[in-house]
């Protein structure tokens, strides 16, 4: 079991990086608690696979250190870091039987055949592979082969963490959920640190206790699925998580109000009444599912002209233009759109203020 | 990793020693060769090369070889390209058998065809011509070309052909302006293999020629049996036959690996 710590870690694929853009991974400090299930979420090219390869030891970071339970493993090769990895496409030894595949890591560590037998039996049971232990691994379907690849990590008692590199990409859609359920069970039973890299938000939020969102080589937020949806720490997280993503309106700040095109919108109470610093970029962020659309003039609200309605059956997404911004509102199936003009109402506790793309909130101990 | 490098270096030395010895010989006079055993030529001389490059009965050998090798490469490619496209894109009646039949030709020993080729080409008046040798070498070069090109062509997605047809391209225009440029590396590697197997062959080339199209390989074997063999000139002639090969490798070196797996990898 391992508590993985990154201290001032940074990486660039160029020999002499100087500008910020040269860095695939900008300098970061980060801790992966022991026994937790993390998802590493971000669009392709945001550096998440680079970070995974640095943790697994396949890539040496340009600067900074990687520590497993306080021990500096930055220079240790992959095989000495006691990690297991499940790749994007199933990596199995085709010519071996499933049993030999699972026994392979233990045999390499010269463990007695008797102990191997019950260890492999136990894992095969956990992964529902008992029925095909005698078959050649190459003949099985991709989801079974991906389980074997996972099993090779689980059989080892000395494994400190299991790393997943978008493991469900090649799995057929209808098999995905059974594998996701299996991963969740494994996490509950094995108490191993799990790090799961993906660009798919559903995959990340379903799998992980904590989601690490990355954007252009930087960790922009670490939080539970709840945090990501209700309090995105960065405008990118608001945009990337949730479909459609968060609405953002540029605005000014006046005490506990955001002022959009002359309209005063009350903000959440824990928004600090910081003095506005000139030159800062202020934005008001609200998710389409929290934004309300009404057709009789409310006390406080923004007038909006409806430009488009997408009917998804179980819900409707209305696109409206207000004060030079385009906003989207999610309406339930029964809500009706009565007419072309409406008013957008901003529930205070759901209206978040962003300064230079970062959430402006009372510091709650966690520096974002 | 030590053992790995040792084996490789040992093997490369094993390859280079005989070649070095040939070169060493080619710069010595005959007397020195037969006289003393020297690792490096005492009296360095270019006479042997001068003999070859001035005497038409010698240098014409190279010219003839290059002519029929180039002819063979062009014919093999021209014929194999459309066929490989057919095998790569379509299934048609008898395609499996035809492909296998082509491969069996590659397995046919040239010696078997000595007699019939000799008679065939003499009867149609092609004996002792470059085209005769070029055509004879098609026996093994065409099957190989089809096999390699089909491998490379299968790397190009079929959707590209369809997009071209959707855009209104006729087949010939698509094949020449879009498809051939896409498999440039494949064509380069196939040319390399055709050159290689045609340039090195002796039996058919010697049997089907006498004077006008006699290849260098045949010229060299003839002088071997003459008495009082001039080793220096022979070594020089041998050294010169390696030059064209080395040049061709250098041009296709980046695609060599893929080509050697006959485009399959």
């Amino acid at each position, binding site marked *: 079991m391992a508590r993985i710590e990154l201290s001032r870690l940074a990486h660039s694929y160029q020999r002499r990086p100087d500008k910020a853009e040269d860095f695939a991974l900008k300098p970061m400090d980060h801790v992966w608690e022991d026994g937790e299930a993390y998802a590493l979420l971000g669009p392709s090219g945001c550096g998440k696979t680079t970070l995974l390869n640095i943790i697994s030891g396949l890539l040496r970071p340009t600067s900074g250190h990687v520590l497993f339970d306080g021990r500096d493993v930055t220079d240790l090769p992959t095989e000495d870091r006691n990690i297991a990895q499940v*790749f994007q496409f199933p990596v199995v030894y085709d010519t071996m039987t499933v049993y030999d595949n699972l026994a*392979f890591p233990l045999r390499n560590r010269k463990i007695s055949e008797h102990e191997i037998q019950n260890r492999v039996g136990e894992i095969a049971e956990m992964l529902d592979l008992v029925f095909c232990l005698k078959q050649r691994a190459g003949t099985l379907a991709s989801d079974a082969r991906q389980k074997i690849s996972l099993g090779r990590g689980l059989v080892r008692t000395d494994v400190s963490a299991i790393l997943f590199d978008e493991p469900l990409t090649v799995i057929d859609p209808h098999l995905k959920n059974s594998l996701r359920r299996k991963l969740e069970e494994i996490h509950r039973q094995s108490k191993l640190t799990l790090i799961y890299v993906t660009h798919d938000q559903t995959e990340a939020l379903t799998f992980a206790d904590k989601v690490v969102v990355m954007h252009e080589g930087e960790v922009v937020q670490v939080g539970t699925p709840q945090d990501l949806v209700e309090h995105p720490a960065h405008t990118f997280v608001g945009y990337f998580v949730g479909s459609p993503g968060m609405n953002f309106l540029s605005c000014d700040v006046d005490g506990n109000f955001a002022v959009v095109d002359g309209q005063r919108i009350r903000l959440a109470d824990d928004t600090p009444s910081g003095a506005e610093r000139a030159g800062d970029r202020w934005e008001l962020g609200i998710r389409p599912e929290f934004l309300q659309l009404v057709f009789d003039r409310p006390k406080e609200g923004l007038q909006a002209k409806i430009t488009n309605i997408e009917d998804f059956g179980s819900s409707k997404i209305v696109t409206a233009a207000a004060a030079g911004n385009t906003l989207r509102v999610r309406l339930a199936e029964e809500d009706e759109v009565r007419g072309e003009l409406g008013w957008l109402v901003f529930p205070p506790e759901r209206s978040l203020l962003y300064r230079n793309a970062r959430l402006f909130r009372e510091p709650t101990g966690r520096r974002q | 990793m030590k053992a790995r490098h040792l084996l490789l270096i040992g093997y490369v030395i094993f390859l280079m020693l005989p070649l070095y010895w040939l070169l060493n010989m080619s710069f010595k006079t005959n007397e020195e060769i037969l006289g003393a055993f020297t690792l490096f030529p005492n009296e360095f001389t270019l006479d042997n090369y001068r003999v070859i490059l001035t005497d038409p009965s010698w240098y014409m050998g190279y010219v003839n070889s290059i002519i029929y090798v180039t002819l063979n490469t062009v014919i093999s490619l021209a014929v194999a390209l459309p066929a490989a496209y*057919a*095998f790569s894109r379509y299934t048609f009646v008898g395609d499996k058998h035809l492909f296998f039949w082509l491969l069996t030709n590659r397995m046919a020993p040239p010696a078997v065809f000595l007699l019939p080729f000799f008679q065939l080409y003499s009867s149609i008046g092609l004996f002792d011509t470059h085209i005769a040798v070029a055509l004879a070498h098609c026996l093994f070069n065409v099957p190989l070309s089809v096999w390699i090109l089909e491998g490379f062509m299968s790397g190009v997605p079929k959707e590209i052909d369809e997009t071209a047809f959707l855009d209104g391209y006729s087949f010939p225009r698509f094949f020449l302006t879009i498809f051939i440029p896409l498999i440039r590396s494949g064509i380069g590697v196939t040319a390399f293999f055709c050159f290689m197997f045609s340039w090195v062959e*002796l039996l058919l080339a010697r049997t089907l020629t006498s004077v006008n199209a006699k290849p260098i390989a045949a010229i060299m074997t003839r002088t071997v049996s003459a008495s009082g063999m001039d080793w220096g000139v022979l070594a020089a002639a041998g050294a010169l036959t390696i030059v064209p090969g080395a040049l061709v490798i250098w041009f296709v070196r980046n695609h060599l690996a893929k080509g050697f797996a006959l485009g399959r990898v």
Partner: protein
Amino acid sequence: MTKTQNNRAWFLVLPVVVLVAFSAIVPLMTVVNYSVQDIFDIENRVFVGSEWYREILLDDGLQKALLRQLVFSFAILLIEIPLGIAVALAMPSRGRWASLTLVVLALPLLIPWNVVGTIWQIFGRADIGLGGVLVTMLGIDYNYAVNPFDAWATVLVMDVWHWTSLVALLCFSGLRAIPDAYFQAARIDGASNWAVFRHIQLPKLKNVLLIAVLLRFMDSFMIYSEPFVLTGGGPGNSTTFLSQTLARLAVGQFDLGPAAAFSLIYFLIILLFCWLFYTTMMQLGRGPRV
């Protein structure tokens, strides 16, 4: 690659069929034709059925030549395939060194076969050849012109020098196609180099190894120029293989019937062995796509 059914593809294949028919079928027909006749000259011929075939099969000299050829070809395979794999494993896989090694290894394949014979003819002489001198220095009295075993061994070493690179290059391209993830997984599983070779590299090499075995068997079974130049088939018949025997029969003594019969038997033997190699290697699991 889903292929569409289209018989008009025959137009594309026609040129190959015509050319290879002209350079293979027509000659083969004449060979078959001659193999069943006794020919004095163009006008009078006599149908003799399978007489030549019986004569060839029972001919003691040819049986010995066939045996020598088989022993030679299998020795070739036993040496060149493992050595080729070893060299391929030792080759650098990326960067400048890789293409340099590729060029050096490919060089012997581009030397005309008779020049290979000439090189070794000089190299192996005990008096003026570097190889000959080295061997005699080791205390072995070595003379390939006189001693049958020395001659046979020299032809063998020459062929290993000439063709092992082909096996090495084929295996090299096979190894390079293995995705890196397999090696990373093996390292994570703590696999030894031998385990990596046995369970990842070897299974993935099966396709190219089949091609290597087939090519090497065919070419070694048809070898003619190199031994012809090096030893002329001597001393005695120790290095006279099938191709040379056939060439002597067909072009030398000019009796067409036996030569044609011999040719067909020779061709059928090769086809048989190639088919045997192909099916046995296919049984070892998924075979290549032909």
